[in-house]
């Protein structure tokens, strides 16, 4: 009999966070019984979830003190509202404080999000900016590891958060990009992008393509044990430094002619990951 690996994608945010930390070390902060819900969704006739769709937990990773922030993709598309965003930002800020007092914390972000929650508009955007600032502050002390596993993917302002991570782990099922395919089709027309064309969409923004073009660092199977292992390994590696290599990325963009956009395969040739590694 062949033993199938346990899926990571099928897990809820809470189960994912639990799968990342060392067995028995999971301790949730601001859990659902704290009822830190979105005050804005019910006003707009939308049912709110008791934890606002973000699980923050302390625990250990390979024996080291760690923190995990996991976004629940099944709730409101993993969107970042005032409360859910503040939970992630606060987790990052507390980790920075711990690092500054000499107690480093290994931070993992499990990103499954369409980006800002439109019903909370600027409050969500402000929280996302705080998350960006938190990652930049924390990665001066310790690596910040991001995981985009899949179902939703990682889009909008939170795709910038993924890019800011010291190391980014993706599966083939993951998608990573500023605008999601449905948004592109809606805004620019089906001639620009047919969002129902899965091979095309994954060719553009899928995990394998993002890995092949150096925009993600590790490509994994949908295997909870492998992802937990790769998270541990990621903390031993030097940071990817994507967001500090401005000139290299300018050159990469200059190599593209927007009048004749490259195919997915063509972009792999233009932006082969080797020139970044």
């Amino acid at each position, binding site marked *: 009999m062949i033993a199938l690996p346990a899926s990571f994608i099928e897990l809820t945010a809470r189960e994912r966070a639990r799968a990342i930390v060392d067995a028995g070390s999971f301790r949730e902060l601001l859990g659902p019984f704290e009822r830190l819900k979105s005050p804005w969704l019910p006003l707009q006739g939308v*049912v*709110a*979830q008791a934890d606002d769709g973000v699980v923050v937990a302390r625990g250990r990773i390979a024996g080291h003190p760690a923190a995990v922030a996991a976004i629940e993709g*099944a709730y409101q598309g993993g969107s970042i509202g005032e409360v859910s965003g503040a939970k992630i930002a606060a987790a990052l800020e507390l980790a920075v404080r711990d690092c500054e007092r000499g107690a480093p914390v290994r931070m993992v972000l499990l990103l499954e999000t369409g980006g800002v929650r439109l019903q909370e508009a600027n409050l969500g955007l402000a929280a996302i900016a705080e998350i960006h600032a938190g990652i930049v502050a924390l990665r001066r002390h310790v690596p910040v590891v991001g995981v985009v596993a899949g179902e939703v993917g990682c889009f909008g302002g939170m795709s910038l958060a993924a890019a800011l991570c010291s190391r980014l782990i993706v599966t083939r099922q993951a998608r990573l990009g500023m605008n999601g395919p449905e948004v592109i089709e809606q805004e620019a027309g089906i001639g620009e992008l047919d969002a129902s064309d899965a091979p095309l969409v994954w060719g553009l923004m899928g995990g394998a393509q993002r890995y092949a073009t150096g925009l993600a660092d590790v490509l994994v199977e949908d295997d909870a044990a492998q992802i937990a292992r790769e998270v541990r390994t990621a903390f031993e590696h030097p940071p990817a430094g994507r967001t500090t290599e401005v000139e290299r990325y300018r050159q990469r963009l200059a190599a593209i002619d927007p009048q004749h956009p490259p195919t997915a395969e063509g972009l792999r040739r233009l932006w082969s990951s080797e020139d970044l590694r």
Partner: protein
Amino acid sequence: MEVLKFDYPAQRALSGRSHVGVVGSGDLEILLEPSGDRHAHVTVSTSVEGFGNVWKHVLDRFFGRFDGAAAIEINDFGATPGVVMLRLEQAVESLTP
């Protein structure tokens, strides 16, 4: 969105609490904890309006077998009655002290 409230008599005090489910399409979230009095209290927030009667039938059936003094918060995103019943049973099974 509609908010519905139900009360049922209870026979025994509860210890522990549980949280199951997600406010995702066709699913619901349940928070179950001791009510602190001799009744069970259920608050349902549901995205689907006009099904108060169906909720009452499902909860009547559940409390025909469950007699704990529980405060139950249900945040529903269009779960069918079968899913609601499974989640309620799961919430009782996963009660932790």
